[in-house]
């Protein structure tokens, strides 16, 4: 995809988001779509780590929940304006993730996943027990000011505008990542993922790119966490729980990581399934789990992989023989 096509797709996606945000009348539908967009961003963060580093995190809720808590605590203390609190939360957590990654990305395979799980659960337990700071198991409300980045918070958090904000964040993050990964940085991280020894031999320092991808992935997930906190006005230890990391990982597996938008597609499918199946079955997750097994077995590259394959076949298919068709029609 050329840069022009990429930019045109971004504009089109933003237009679709605006049409949905201001065209859909149902507040329930808007709320569901907003949640889907926020979780799509969360899954994009998890997917980025898998796509560029080949690493599976079972504890990315750490960054999702921590960003909400960081903003909530900063707002409670009135130490900085809300805009600075938001930027500090995302930037600070990205920095923390980078430092942490310098240690944990050295651990290979399943052990890395277990390490992320342990760190995530440590944060969950801390948030649950430090009642004075986090509200403990009850969580804490966010004391948003009247305006945020020049917009009225009460207007911003209405269903339509909130969907527009979440959707725009998702689209713009995907655009930024697509542009970044086309650069040398993208090529370097792919090289390290594919063959670390060869990458080292051609002069790539393999630890820093891995840590940078982890930090970037944490920043994307933290952005989703801030949006969730804005959407609900509340943050609780559940936002740090490993089960949430598991849900994001399921979205990634369903959507696939061959393309950047794969995990977002997985999130859309997840919320669609939740809405449709949830109306008919109490244990809809069991049905979704079965579908997940089918995807893993028959389409390990996820639904985006299937779509790409179908698109490739369509492109590769010979042009229809119009002459033959005309003859058939005449007959």
């Amino acid at each position: 995809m050329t840069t022009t096509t990429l930019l045109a797709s971004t504009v089109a996606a933003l237009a679709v988001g605006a049409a949905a945000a201001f065209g859909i009348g149902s507040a329930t539908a808007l709320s569901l779509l907003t949640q889907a967009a926020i979780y799509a961003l969360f899954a994009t963060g998890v997917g980025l780590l898998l796509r560029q580093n080949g690493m599976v995190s079972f504890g990315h809720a750490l960054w999702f929940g921590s960003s909400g808590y960081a903003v909530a605590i900063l707002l409670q203390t009135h130490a900085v304006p809300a805009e600075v609190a938001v930027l500090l939360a995302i930037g600070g957590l990205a920095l923390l993730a980078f430092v942490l990654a310098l240690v944990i990305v050295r651990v290979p395979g399943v052990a890395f996943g277990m390490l992320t799980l342990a760190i995530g659960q440590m944060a969950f337990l801390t948030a649950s027990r430090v009642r004075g700071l986090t509200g403990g198991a009850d969580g804490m409300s966010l004391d948003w000011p009247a305006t945020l980045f020049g917009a009225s918070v009460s207007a911003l958090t209405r269903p339509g505008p909130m969907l527009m904000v979440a959707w725009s964040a998702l689209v713009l993050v995907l655009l930024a990542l697509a542009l970044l990964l086309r650069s040398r940085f993208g090529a370097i991280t792919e090289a390290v993922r594919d063959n670390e020894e060869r990458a080292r031999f051609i002069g790539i320092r393999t630890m820093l790119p891995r840590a940078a991808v982890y930090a970037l992935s944490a920043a994307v997930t933290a952005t989703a966490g801030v949006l969730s906190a804005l959407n609900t006005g509340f943050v609780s230890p559940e936002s740090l729980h490993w089960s949430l990391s598991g849900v994001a990982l399921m979205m990634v597996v369903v959507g696939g990581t061959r393309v950047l938008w794969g995990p977002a597609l997985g999130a859309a499918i997840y919320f669609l399934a939740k809405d449709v199946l949830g109306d008919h079955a109490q244990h809809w997750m069991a049905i979704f789990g079965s579908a997940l097994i089918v995807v893993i077995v028959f389409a390990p590259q996820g639904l985006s992989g299937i779509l790409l394959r179908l698109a490739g076949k369509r492109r590769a298919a010979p042009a229809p023989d119009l002459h033959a068709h005309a003859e058939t029609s005449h007959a």
Partner: protein
Amino acid sequence: MPDYVMQTEDVAIHYGGVKAVDGVELTLQRGEIRGLIGPNGAGKSTVIDAITGRRPLTRGKVHLGGEDVSALGPVQRRRKGLSRSFQRTSIFEQMPVRKQVELASWKMGTADPGADADDVLHELSLDTLADTTAADLGYGQQRRLDLALALVGKPSVLLLDEPMAGLSVKESLDLAQHLKALTARRGVSVLLVEHDMDVVFGISDAVTVFELGRVIAAGSPAEVRRDPRVREAYLGSAA
């Protein structure tokens, strides 16, 4: 300026009491292809690891164009023109062919990595596969891509560790022809570790024979073929 491009001086790698390589003296002349043969476990790959800095030397020195590079790491040696391929195909499987060759060239500090990559891909007849993902290539093509990654940045010395391993006879001959042609065109010197004797004796200007970590013979292919020690230790009556 010395005549040689690469020289080892009393190189040894010992693992406790085991002398994997001991007292190896190797000289590679400018534009020369030197075959390095010997039975399995003779220390051929270990010598390549020693020259490229992948394994620390127990004793000895490695000179590149007159400069002692023994204290440098593999990447610094690569930037000084000492390149290698690996025994097992070592490519970036999920990346398109040209993208990875250009990346390798860029990391070597080449002024125009794109042109360098195109040049190398053309020489190895991979230019028509530039946009293909490496995993989708045939094995012979992957071996050539491996060679392409070693060739970017115009190295002066190329150490090839069994580049024909796993190739069919036709693919081996094809790669051997490419190797001979690009050595002449680029003026690169090649140290070729290979078990395919037809290839080694077919394209080498000189051959060195290893046994138990030591050089037992060296000379022109014809001289080496006639050497009774080599016939006894390695080539046997088939030679």
